[in-house]
């Protein structure tokens, strides 16, 4: 039963609106260390300098999309064990299938509720305290 406050996370999305929404949701769940990045490349750069335990990333972003970020993370041993939740704009089965192939830990369809966010995170880490 990990404490949410002990899980540092990174929110990657090119829309500040979504980053803020995810951040607000995470804060409500007790997360304390929440970093943000505006695209996949930015997110990867962030992870190389300051690793986190959970990445919640959008799929459709400029420079490097969510799948690219996921692949980069999984192919780089120092960060490859980071939990990864993919945010998708619509229920896109094909996309989630591809993400699963690359080792995604879960997905989240926008718009989401704090309840769903919690559910998806707990599916990975177990019940949060």
């Amino acid at each position, binding site marked *: 039963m990990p404490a949410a406050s002990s899980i540092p996370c990174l929110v990657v999305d*090119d829309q500040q609106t*979504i980053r803020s929404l995810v951040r607000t949701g995470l804060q409500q769940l007790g997360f304390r260390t929440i970093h943000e990045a505006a695209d996949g490349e930015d997110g990867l*750069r962030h992870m190389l300098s300051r690793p986190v335990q959970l990445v919640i990333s959008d799929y*459709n972003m*400029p420079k490097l999309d969510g799948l690219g970020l996921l692949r980069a993370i999984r192919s780089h041993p*120092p960060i490859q064990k980071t939990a990864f939740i993919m945010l998708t704009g619509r229920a896109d089965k094909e996309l989630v299938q591809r993400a699963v192939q690359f080792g995604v830990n879960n997905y989240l369809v926008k718009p989401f509720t704090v309840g769903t966010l919690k559910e998806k995170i707990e599916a990975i880490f177990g019940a949060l305290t």
Partner: protein
Amino acid sequence: MDALAAIRDVFFQECEEQLAELESGLLAMEGGDTDPETINAVFRAVHSIKGGAGAFSLEALIRFAHVFETALDEMRSGRLAPSSDVLKTMLRAADVLADLVRAARVDEDGQHPHAATLAEELKAMSGAAGEADETEEDWGDFEFQPMAAAMDAPEAPAGPTGFVVTFKPRADLYAKANEAALLLRELGRLGAVEVELDAHDVPPLHEMDPEAAYLAWTITVTGDADEAAIREVFEWVDGDCELNIQAIGGEAEGDDGAEAAFDLSALLARVQGDAPAEAAPEPEAPIAAAFEPIPEPPVVAAPVVAAAPAPLAPPAAANEPSPDGQAGGGARKAEAAAGATIRVDLDRVDRLIDLVGELVINQAVLAQRVMEAGLARASAVAMGLDELEQLTREIQDSVMAIRAQPVKSVFQRMPRLVREVAAMTGKPVRLVTEGEGTEVDKTVIERLADPLTHMIRNAIDHGLESPEKRAAAGKPAEGVVRLSAAHRSGRIVIEVADDGGGINRERVKSIAIEKGLISAEATLSDEEIDNLIFMPGFSTASEVSDISGRGVGMDVVRRSIQALGGRITITSRPGKGSIFTMSLPLTLAVLDGMVVSVQGQTLVAPITAIVETLQPKASDVHSLGGHARVISIRGGFVPLIDVGMALGYRREPLPATQGVALLIEGEGGARAALLCDAIQGQRQVVIKSLEANYRQVPGVAAATILGDGRVALILDIDTIVAVSRGEMRKAG
């Protein structure tokens, strides 16, 4: 729900950016841009709007964005060709989307007159793709990577290069006389540390429990410390805190920064599928720095006592740059790249501008005092003051630049307007914009939208000929309206040009005579005739059209430009078209003024209102009885207003020949001559509100402080002219 309301604001701000991107992308594609990134950006814009709208349950917006997104997706995947017709429909859809966004912003998430028909058109384009809408329920179960499996992944070849420790003491920890700061210091002995304070839990002061623990820390330890050593530090407090230790790093053997940089570019190349033959080992500074161990003794947050967690230092404070400025600076640069812009409350910027205005004045006063004190120009004080002046000017310019914005934000509203007016008039039009990056004060930009809208409408409605006439004149059927901006001698010059028939001077003149604006005998130059269209009440359209409005013609445009301290002129060539040129100040905080003296007082008249200055001859001045006088200027009469009398500085009028007259042009083109004692010179003055500091005074627009520290009033030309005219009418 304040947090949500704030996010909602951000959403609408972002929507504006995305709408702009959407439109410019579609326009670029219309112009032949086939870059896949363009269509991607266009798709992403609509996708993002839909995503955000979903979070706020803006149903009408979501529905329309969804249909639009589907059509764009078809285009992105190559199933729908971006033909001119398709793009035209998409542009109209972009307009509807913009309307829906704006309606949603003011809580009108309702119907749009064109949304339904356009949605149908878009659906027709998308074909079958628009029909089936997947839901998650149809998916069955996916086998997600469980965390346990991830944990079993093969170990990294090299050991970890560091650890991220999250440490949140509970109250018990302090109760047992342990000290968080000491633990942090202890950690610092194990290697280089970076400490980030998390003070989220600190409640407002009145709710604070002196016995409770509110602070947490994230500590990144790099170097060759192992996990056991770190655990040992926390050995005595293990049960009294939340502790998490995670290994980081691995392969980067020898901690070579360049190698880490290679990592990122190689990683990116790998996942983006375009690994260059020579994976460039060009070290990317920020990343390299991030991997470099910080060779400094650890920096620990200021000692924190449990009972008084007062010093809420921002995280950066605990992250002092190392003496060589490399490691810390590099990391900071990486962060700067992540957020190159910040949103700042406009009030704060204005307050700063105000203060800098004060600084400029103060500096000038100080310089004057130093001169008066008899200090030599070459003295150290005077030289230092010169440098201060230089610096002050630079600060002023930089601060003004904060308020400056590219005119793009108003220019980008014009393509839509052109599309609409073109459709209404049946004239094919191409809009060409230039100099969108030209910057000018935000307030100027905001107040430019209306006059520009009017002028562009005018250019299409009145300027451009019908396609038939153009064909007859040997011109291409498509008319061109050119909108451009440029900086010219400290002002911004905006031009609206059309390649239409030019001003029909015969007709303009006959209308002006018919409306009694000029006498039938008047001989006017071409330029004077062209400028008649700025006269109040002048409208050449025989039937008032839907587009150019109700005869509120160019006079309104001119008035709004003048209100911004600007000027507007027209040049026209028959058969070739007309050019409207607006010249505006870059900022509203300073004013180009003519400094004059009146009865021992120093006053400032805005240069933009002054047409010319003249020395009145006795023979030109005629009395109308009482104190009312007129002066003859090139055959016409204008009222001669004694400023000293108008402001109550003197009871007897100044003999006209002893003063200087400023011929000014006020609201609606009304002319008058202002009689002053003498002209002191021309200079830029910082505008200070008189209303805010004293009270409103008729005839005075604002005040300024001159270099010698004296206050000078800035004349409100329009009021002075209006009041004097009223008095003159009474006298006459």
